[in-house]
């Protein structure tokens, strides 16, 4: 391995395609990245999530060698992206968040330009992708909408033989039909053993595609894990109806946000319960004579809203 690769971390899997530790990037006095850790294993789709301005694109630009890091380590395929970009870029493809194309070239010319810069490509594969994305490649890029510009970048990335796809909000301008096409194409790539770093705000897309997610806020990773693992740390909503509301529900361990709503007969109680308090709370409610009982796992929206909001205030 190259001398520029970071020391292999304790307990980390040996096959990290992207390995970032303690990454720092400053723009003037602003710390865009402030000790970020990020790891993408071979063959996985990692969802890269965070509010606007949290540092997702900055991280991707460091990984592509476009900007130089101020601290920490970053390795892609075990190499330093600043020192050794060309060898890394031969194995990856990139779709920027805000695709800018050459206005005077047609979409087809833009696709082929990008593919030729990347290296060899299979014209049949490219044509098939153009068809699946329903793109008119004879139009000048200046007439394209945001969605069509994204399609050009996606076709160029997916028609390449890259092992790693770095996608920065690639579907924000696509219609639901094309979004669906995008998901099946990504699944095909992953089935081939390719690796994907997917920055996205579309939670259904994240849930459908990603094995793991890393959530960043203010330039720092605040949570990494599978969606199930994240759910484990998020409160479940429990609802029950009673003729008479029992005393002391809010004193149960792990229970918070108790809310009473009077019905025509009896009262509905809604509360939020942490995972470790769940079994106790459910038992207590059955004992107290609950007539109905509903347990709702946290929705994705709740999952992320909670992370986007509270961690920043704490940090």
């Amino acid at each position, binding site marked *: 391995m190259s001398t520029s690769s970071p020391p292999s971390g304790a307990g980390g899997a040996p096959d990290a395609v992207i390995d970032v530790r303690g990454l720092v990037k400053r723009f003037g006095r602003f710390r865009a990245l402030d000790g970020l850790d990020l790891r993408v294993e071979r063959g996985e789709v990692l969802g890269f999530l965070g509010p606007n301005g949290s540092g997702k694109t900055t991280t991707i630009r460091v990984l592509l060698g476009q900007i130089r890091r101020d601290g920490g380590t970053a390795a892609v395929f075990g190499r330093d992206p600043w020192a050794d970009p*060309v060898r890394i870029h031969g194995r990856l493809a990139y779709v920027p968040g805000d695709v800018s194309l050459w206005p005077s070239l047609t979409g087809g010319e*833009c696709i082929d330009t990008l593919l030729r810069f990347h290296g060899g490509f299979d014209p049949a594969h490219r044509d098939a992708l153009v068809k699946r994305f329903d793109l008119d490649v004879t139009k000048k890029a200046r007439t394209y*909408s945001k969605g069509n510009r994204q399609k050009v970048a996606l076709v160029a990335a997916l028609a390449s033989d890259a092992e790693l796809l770095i996608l920065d909000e690639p579907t924000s301008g696509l219609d639901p039909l094309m979004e669906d096409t995008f998901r099946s194409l990504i699944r095909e790539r992953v089935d081939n053993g390719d690796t994907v770093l997917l920055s996205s705000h579309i939670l259904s897309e994240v849930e459908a595609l990603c094995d793991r997610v890393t959530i960043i806020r203010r330039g720092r990773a605040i949570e990494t894990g599978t969606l199930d693992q994240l759910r484990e740390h998020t409160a479940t909503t429990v609802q029950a109806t009673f003729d008479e509301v029992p005393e002391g529900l809010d004193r149960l361990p792990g229970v918070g946000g108790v809310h009473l709503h009077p019905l025509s007969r009896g009262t509905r109680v809604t509360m939020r319960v942490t995972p470790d308090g769940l079994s106790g709370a459910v038992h207590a409610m059955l004992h107290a004579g609950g007539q109905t009982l509903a347990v709702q796992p946290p929705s994705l929206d709740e999952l992320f809203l909670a992370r986007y909001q509270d961690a920043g205030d704490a940090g």
Partner: protein
Amino acid sequence: MNGIDIHGWSALTRLLLRTSRLTLTLWPLLIGVLAFVTARSVSGLYDTPEKRALYAQTVTGSAVQAAFNGRAYDVTGVGGIAVYELGFYSLLVFPAIAVHMAVHLTRSQEDAGRLDILTASRLGRTAPLAAAFALLAAALGGTGVLTWAGLTAAGLPAVGSAWFAAATVASMAFFAALGVVAAQVAQDARGAHGLGGAQQRRHHRDGLGVMAGLYLVRAAVDGRGWNATWVSPSGWFPETRPFGDTASWPLVAYAAGALALAALAAVLNVRRDLGAGLVVPRPGPPRGAAALGTPFGLTWRLNRGALLAWMVGIAVWEGIFGSLTREMRAMIERNPGLREYFGVTGSPDDLMTSMAALMGALLAAGVGIQVVGRLAGEEIASRAAVVMAAPVSRVRWWAGAVGVALTQAGVVALVGGVALGVGAWMSTGDAAYLRRAPAWALAYLPAVALVTAAAAVVAATRPRWHAAGWAVFGWVLTVAMLAGTLRMSPALRGTSPQEHVGRIPAEPLDVAGVVIMAAVSVALLAASAALFRRRDLAA
């Protein structure tokens, strides 16, 4: 008229003022300063009636002077000499500034997509045009006041200075209106997302092309001494005669022309917006050629249209000046004193051809600066970042793109040399020009490369500063046109590359100077690549 609605123009004017304040203040200031320094040096240089008489005797007989600076009037007085020394600027450079400001204030705002978000609010369709006119009027008013102040501060009579200032404002207003019309006409299939400068460049090209065409028509007429200078608006300016028997008809003609063009722009503006969706874009090739997959090939393709326009432009320009060679020879033979005055040692023809060769080199340097500017634009628009996310190293991309800048500058220089040779050959019947003129163009190539390399260093340091490359161009132009008038010291002149070529063909080629410039160019290009490799990409 139906459709003209300027609701909200004042708010838009304030916004434009805020975003364009540098353009709007710097140009008027520059013009005022130039008027001042020129007038001051002229009064120092030609401080006795004898010196002024000699000056008058020289320039009134010169086809070169007439072609470049227009007709000479009242050059027995300091004021008239100052006006004449500024002639090239009044007739070509200031109008070019006016066109640039007009395009900048209209289309560049629109093309950057900034207007879309504004016109969606309560804003009349013609409001952007009205705001641009308001700011142009303010900038030109400022130009007039500063020019007048510059001339009077240098000791010229207040009344004559006022006439000159008025003529400057009137002619710039005319050409600004022309620029606005060009901005409206060149509208084509601009989609809702036509980001970036390609469109804006087209408006610049159209506006500046018409302006340069009018200048050349006048140069051809004045160079031959025909009594028809009025055929081109470019020829009206000297007729004002600020420090002699003043005439107001040029001012009236400019003003009327400006108003007519402004009205035309307003009509086009209304029609254009209504019909914008009617233009069906032509389909293009569905596949990209193999050449697009290299930095050189891609950059070449992106600059192909501009190169063609430059080639046509320089061919016409150099051809016309070349065709005036015989006129110059005839004049020098009539008046041998001229030969001494200009310090011509060889053939009298060389006076015109050496000036034309220098101008050709300047235009070629402009091509190099323009391509480097587009290179910076590629980076700012983050298209360069996408290319370099492929296995294309920074240095390879940079070398390819800067290589295009150098190649296209060289091509334009050679086309200019050939056109000058053909023009001079047709004028004099001397076929040797067909070989000599391209050789002069070759001799200037290291100087052209040096200016291009300097622009590349700027863009490599910080792409958003790339316009500073044009400051280098402006400086070289000033040394070329005004070094004598402004009594620049040899050291100051020496900062301009052209000074190290030697006044070819009138004087022998400065071989050492040319070789050193070639070496410095190579060093600067290497430095630019190293700088570009080491810094963060802008976007």
